[in-house]
């Protein structure tokens, strides 16, 4: 029989059961999380900040609700951390940027309200690449996070703090945002489940915008079941986000047990070529063999425009970013320079002082591809190639239910290894960005470890608004393997 994991490594499902029978109080659990956070943070740096008194007050309120027989919902008393791009009223909201170093959010994101309605205890502001631009957290103005499995390595990015906090046991679940792989890649590098939902399933109201046609909020969790619980708490139409969809929502957690295969699974051959680490490739092949052994039909398919995903992404994402980040002008909020001579000077110097290198690079690239004379050649062409990329996926779904790929071509790399070469960093996202361009749901789940003990992630890509099937497919694999019962020694 397995020994129970320490409290800080337990799942939402396990902790909820203990809370509901009074074996544990929300205050005790939150105290344990804060103690753990204080113990590991000097080494991990997953948090930009955390408000101990506020978290304990929320926990006490949760216990009071429970005593009164008015438990709020599926996350009652569960400490959940938020990436520092998701607004919580009265708390800092920095996007890990000097530009917003002193910004305090005047309102809640919709997902924040939904988590609160479900009873969650919001714990901490989690580090990320500045304005969610990056794949390693090294673009954070407040310093990188470390991977709990190897502190000399990156937890991935941009939602690296959300992954590192969960892997280190400083939260029970977390939220991140995923524009080109920013949930799935850090989940893979930290041995976690990370879900990027269908574009439009989760409200983006109160999420700091990077590339609005690609951004989507999603959960990090220890298990597929926990990810299903989190998704159920945050999904749904929101009139404050005009891109959010009116769609009927299943009970994602319950559906894990009712939706069973065998599924028809597609293996896109373009995702297994040059650049794929042999150990990652072998672990993914083993996972494919498992599904085959369960009676799933495995079919090789082609996504012929895969080689154009990276370029398409870096045109569309930077174009949208250059527009979205125009709001940071030093006038109404954010950093304002103290050395300006006139209004133009305020804009140019405030932005130069407030933004880091990667943000500047993307604003410049985005401005260039949108500028007069280049718009058709770059931006319009990229939008047309995006159509072809999306059609590739939709064609594949005529034949198969879901796709299996690696999440990241490589396991966690050393901090500093790629930070001088933007293009090398961008190549970390080659298996994840197509999903954002096509607006599809996808998740990463652990599928093994390298010889040196680094987690490996398996990506499952599903059909639009069919997260329940995607989660069930992942659950079937997870139940037959024990990867998520291993924890970093920290």
């Amino acid at each position, binding site marked *: 029989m397995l020994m129970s994991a320490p409290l800080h490594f337990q799942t939402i499902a396990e902790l909820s059961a203990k809370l509901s029978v009074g074996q544990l109080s929300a205050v005790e659990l939150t105290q344990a999380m804060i103690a753990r956070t204080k113990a590991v943070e000097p080494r991990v740096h997953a948090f930009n900040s955390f408000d101990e008194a506020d978290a304990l007050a929320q926990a006490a309120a949760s216990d009071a609700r429970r005593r009164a027989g008015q438990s709020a919902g599926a996350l009652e008393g569960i400490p959940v951390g938020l990436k520092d791009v998701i607004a919580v009223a009265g708390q800092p909201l920095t996007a890990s940027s000097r530009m917003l170093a*002193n*910004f*305090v959010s*005047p*309102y809640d994101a919709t997902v924040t309200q939904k988590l609160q309605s479900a009873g969650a205890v919001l714990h901490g502001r989690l580090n990320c690449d500045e304005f969610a631009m990056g794949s390693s957290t090294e673009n954070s103005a407040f310093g990188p996070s470390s991977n709990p499995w190897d502190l000399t390595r990156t937890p991935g990015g941009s939602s690296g703090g959300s992954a590192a906090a969960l892997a280190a046991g400083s939260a029970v679940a977390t939220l991140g945002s995923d524009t080109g792989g920013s949930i799935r890649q850090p989940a893979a590098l930290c041995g976690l489940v990370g879900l990027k939902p*269908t*574009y*439009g399933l989760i409200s983006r109201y109160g999420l700091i915008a990077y590339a609005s*046609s690609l951004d989507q909020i999603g959960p990090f969790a220890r298990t597929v079941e926990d990810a299903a619980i989190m998704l159920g708490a945050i999904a749904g139409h929101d*009139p404050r986000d*005009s*891109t959010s969809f009116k769609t009927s929502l299943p009970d994602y957690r319950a559906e894990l047990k009712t939706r069973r295969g065998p599924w028809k699974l597609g293996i896109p051959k373009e995702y297994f070529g040059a650049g794929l680490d042999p150990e990652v490739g072998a672990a993914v092949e083993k996972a494919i063999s498992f599904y085959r052994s369960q009676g799933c039909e495995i079919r090789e398919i082609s996504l012929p425009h895969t080689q*154009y995903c*990276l*370029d*398409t992404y*870096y*045109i569309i994402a930077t174009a949208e970013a*250059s527009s979205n980040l125009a709001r940071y002008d030093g*006038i*109404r*909020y*954010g950093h304002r320079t103290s050395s300006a001579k*006139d*209004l*133009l*000077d*305020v804009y*140019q*110097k405030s*932005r*130069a002082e407030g*933004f880091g*290198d990667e943000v*500047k*690079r993307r*604003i*410049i*690239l985005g*401005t260039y591809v949108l*500028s007069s*004379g*280049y718009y058709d*050649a*770059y931006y*319009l*062409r*990229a939008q*047309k*190639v995006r*159509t*072809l990329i*999306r059609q590739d996926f939709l064609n594949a779904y005529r034949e198969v239910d879901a796709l299996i790929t690696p999440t990241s071509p490589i396991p966690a790399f050393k901090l500093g290894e790629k930070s001088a070469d*933007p*293009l090398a960093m*961008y190549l970390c996202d080659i298996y994840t960005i197509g999903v954002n*361009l*096509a*607006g*599809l749901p996808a998740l990463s789940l652990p599928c093994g470890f390298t010889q040196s003990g680094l987690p490996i992630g398996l990506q499952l890509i599903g059909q639009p608004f069919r997260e329940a099937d995607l989660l069930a497919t992942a659950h079937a694999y997870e139940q037959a393997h024990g990867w998520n019962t291993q924890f970093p020694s920290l």
Partner: protein
Amino acid sequence: MSQPAELNIERIAELSRLALTPEEKTRFSAQLGSILGHIEQLAKVDVSGIEPTAHAFPLNNVWAADIAQPGLAVSAALNNAPAQRDHMIVVPKVVD
């Protein structure tokens, strides 16, 4: 498609409202040159007759009832302003 060498960093920095140092101009030009070099391969794709995709699931004409909703209080809206006075944001003089 244009050649990457055409990226006029002075002009683009001005459009971006970014005051770049000479060192940044040199470094960003080189880095963006290699990224634009990579992007050139999009010119090979045949996109004739293909409609552009702005959103994967476009929703058009999303209407809301025209009913006034409570908004942020003035003090909350101004709380993050770099400089404020009398319920207004203070900015540098723009007319002489």
